[in-house]
């Protein structure tokens, strides 16, 4: 195996593009190194992106936030401006693993690893985040929900990497939240999870919303029907009921030792409703 730690994105893309065998980006390594250890992957080339300065930064711009691909989740949880604007995203990132894992893991690694249960992904999808992709053919931006295409598979092409995640600026009364169900209180994989982001208009009426579910389908799912159920409402009982139904209807989970199909489908509704209530409160609604 060859290890490279380039200092520019361009150099990283160059290395990945001309790699002969299997090439992997190394961010925090909390998925990649585990898979290497288990013999599931045997990279010929590993490109460590942590020495690329712009990838280590969180930038606040007029259009929102740009989170560099090598920023650890521990660093996200120390960023006051980001916590204020996107508390749900930061909370979700903060749920990944232990303190030790937090020091290393990244939301981009979480996204690219493409686990249906990845904790930060439903929150990013609900937030309307975009992935900034750099590759041999230049730059392109895609919605984060279009990055994972199946368990462990993503839509990046040879030579491509994600440089950053863009989160939109928060306008007016907005809030987001992420909840997961796990049998323990920490260090566990989501059995079901839900992310909700919403913006209020006049008199606490929801003007805009996005709802995403994790661990109930092969990829994290953006559930437009669930968002529709609460837009135009003040999140009253009837709206919550409809939200829950739409969330359950969007589930096509697996049955495994962590949860049955029935359980996951039911809990998806519960978590979507609770996350919506937290997001609504954070947005200043009552």
């Amino acid at each position: 195996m060859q290890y490279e730690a380039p200092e520019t994105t361009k150099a990283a893309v160059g290395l990945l593009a001309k790699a002969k065998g299997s090439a992997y980006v190394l961010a925090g390594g909390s998925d990649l190194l585990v898979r290497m250890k288990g013999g599931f992957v045997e990279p010929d080339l590993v490109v460590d992106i942590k020495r690329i300065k712009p990838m280590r930064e969180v930038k606040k711009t007029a259009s929102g936030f740009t989170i560099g691909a090598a920023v650890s989740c521990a660093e996200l949880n120390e960023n006051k401006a980001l916590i204020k604007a996107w508390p749900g995203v930061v909370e979700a990132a903060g749920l990944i693993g232990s303190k030790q894992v937090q020091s290393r893991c990244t939301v981009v690694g979480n996204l690219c690893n493409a686990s249906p249960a990845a904790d930060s992904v439903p929150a990013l999808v609900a937030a309307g985040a975009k992935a900034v992709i750099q590759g041999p053919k230049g730059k392109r931006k895609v919605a984060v929900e279009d990055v994972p295409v199946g368990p462990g598979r993503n839509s990046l092409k040879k030579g491509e990497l994600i440089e950053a995640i863009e989160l939109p600026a928060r306008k007016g009364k907005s809030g987001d939240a992420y909840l997961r169900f796990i049998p323990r209180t920490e260090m566990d994989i989501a059995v079901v999870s839900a992310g909700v982001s919403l913006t209020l208009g006049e008199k606490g009426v929801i003007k805009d919303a996005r709802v995403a579910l994790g661990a109930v389908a092969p990829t994290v799912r953006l559930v437009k029907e669930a968002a529709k159920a609460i837009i135009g409402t003040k999140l009253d009982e009837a709206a919550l009921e409809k939200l829950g139904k739409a969330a359950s209807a969007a589930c096509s989970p697996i049955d495994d030792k962590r949860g049955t199909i029935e359980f996951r489908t039911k809990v998806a509704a519960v978590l979507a409703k609770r996350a919506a209530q937290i997001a609504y409160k954070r947005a200043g609604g009552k």
Partner: protein
Amino acid sequence: MAVLVTTTINGDRVEFACEPNEPLLDVLRNRLGLSGAKEGCGTGDCGACSVQVDGRVVCSCLVLGVEAEGREIETVEGLAQGTELHPLQSKFLEHAALQCGVCTPGFLMAAKALLEKNPNPTEEEIRFGLAGNLCRCTGYDKIVRAVQDAAKVMRG
């Protein structure tokens, strides 16, 4: 092909050669004779291999040795000052917060990182902060007490 790496470990400049896919844990234990960090699982789950890299606690089994280039690494061997134990070490002994001791270096390093960020943690914060460290002997209570007591000493 082995790669030459220059790094700082417990304040000392260290050079070593390692394979590109070799975990930092193996470098510490097998090449540098620093056998404090232990391998419990090798996959990030148990925390027995915890060390600090640039001031943050990590599982050294999930860091490549080559990543250490130019970084500052602290291991459990750097805790005691000469013959004087670190307050965490003294309190672990006093409270009998270990039995077999395999998890102890990892708990000490994780607890140190926790107290650096939060000098006066609640019991819940301690349990949460140390959730990445597993112990099959003590039942954790004694570890929590030792950390609380050490925090008190360290606050002065």
